[in-house]
């Protein structure tokens, strides 16, 4: 086999392995992307705007927040502050994926660019078979998710409110996926301090600060708690 054929086979194998993991995200992103496109459409924007945002911003929460920024008076500083607050969790993912994404070589740049909740969850937890290239697996998970999102946002922007079928509750697909990934991580670890820290402090902050403002306090609380727990966690050999 030539080097080119070899490479093509590595890519095909990684794509075949990656695709099934992205099916829930296909459903969730098409739905949420179309919803975002429709909101942009009825707010008076051409489909080009949601399409360009899905390519460059690539983030559900951020793009939904962007609609209200774009329909208010020009205020780039508020836009920047809100962007930093909503996307601060990417710092968590970056710190967690430092070594793996770097090991992927030049395509690691795209892996970092395409960091989102769903892609991070899959790329961090997926059990990739030994004969599948981990770097290309992560690349295809990222690329497929990005394409689903671009397709959803663009379609929603083009067809706007013409689309009407009863999809009420379909957004639950993401909630179910995060729960399953949480359970997988739970089953993988003997000590559940980290999972419980994340779950309980987030719940506490959601109750105290409310749905719109709890994300940042929750992240700071988790960071503080894990920092305080460093010695016992490392001493017990319980840190994964």
């Amino acid at each position, binding site marked *: 086999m030539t080097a080119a054929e070899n490479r093509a086979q590595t890519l095909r194998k990684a794509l075949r392995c990656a695709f099934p993991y992205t*099916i*829930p995200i296909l459903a969730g992103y098409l739905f949420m992307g179309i919803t975002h496109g429709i909101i942009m459409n009825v707010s008076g924007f051409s489909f080009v705007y949601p399409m360009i*945002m899905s390519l*460059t*911003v690539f983030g559900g929460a951020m793009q939904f927040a962007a609609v209200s*920024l*774009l329909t208010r*008076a*020009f205020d*780039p500083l508020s*836009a*920047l502050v809100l*962007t*930093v607050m909503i*996307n601060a*969790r*990417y*710092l*968590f993912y*970056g*710190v*967690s994926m*430092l*070594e793996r994404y*770097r090991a992927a070589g030049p395509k690691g740049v795209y892996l*970092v*660019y395409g*960091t989102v*909740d769903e892609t991070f969850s899959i790329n961090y937890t997926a059990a990739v078979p030994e004969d599948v290239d981990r770097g290309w697996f992560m690349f295809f998970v990222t690329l497929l998710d990005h394409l689903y999102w671009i397709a959803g946002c663009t379609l929603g922007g083009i067809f706007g409110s013409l689309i009407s079928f*009863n999809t*009420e*509750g*379909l957004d*639950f*697909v993401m909630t*179910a*996926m*995060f*729960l*399953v*990934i*949480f359970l997988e*991580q739970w089953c993988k*670890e003997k000590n559940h301090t*980290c*999972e419980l*820290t*994340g*779950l*309980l*402090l*987030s719940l506490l902050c959601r109750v105290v600060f409310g*749905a719109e403002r709890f*994300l940042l306090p929750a992240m700071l609380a*988790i960071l503080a708690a*894990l*920092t305080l727990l*460093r010695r016992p*966690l490392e001493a017990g050999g319980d840190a*994964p």
Partner: protein
Amino acid sequence: MTDLQLIVTIAVIALGSLVMRFLPYWLFPAGRPTPAYVRYLGRVLPSAAFGLLVVYALKDVSLTAAPHGLPEAIALAVTAALHLWKRQLLLSVAAGTVCYMLLVQLVF
């Protein structure tokens, strides 16, 4: 807003998102050893982040207003039970979602 102001706003959001994604890689470059504290965080943060994501996905559920988070609770229980039994990501997610859609469209 004018078209230029719209473009500037989107550019600010896109660049801000980009910086948040790349910042850890700039702060801890490949050549130098990553501080032990950051490597520790890299090991413990994902588990905590998955807990955060579950709460984040459910953030708009209200326990005080009807239906008191009941459809979510039932669908999450179905998803979890099926997953602990079969350990099939797609099966658990699909069943949980269909269950939730039926509940909110037909029951509640």
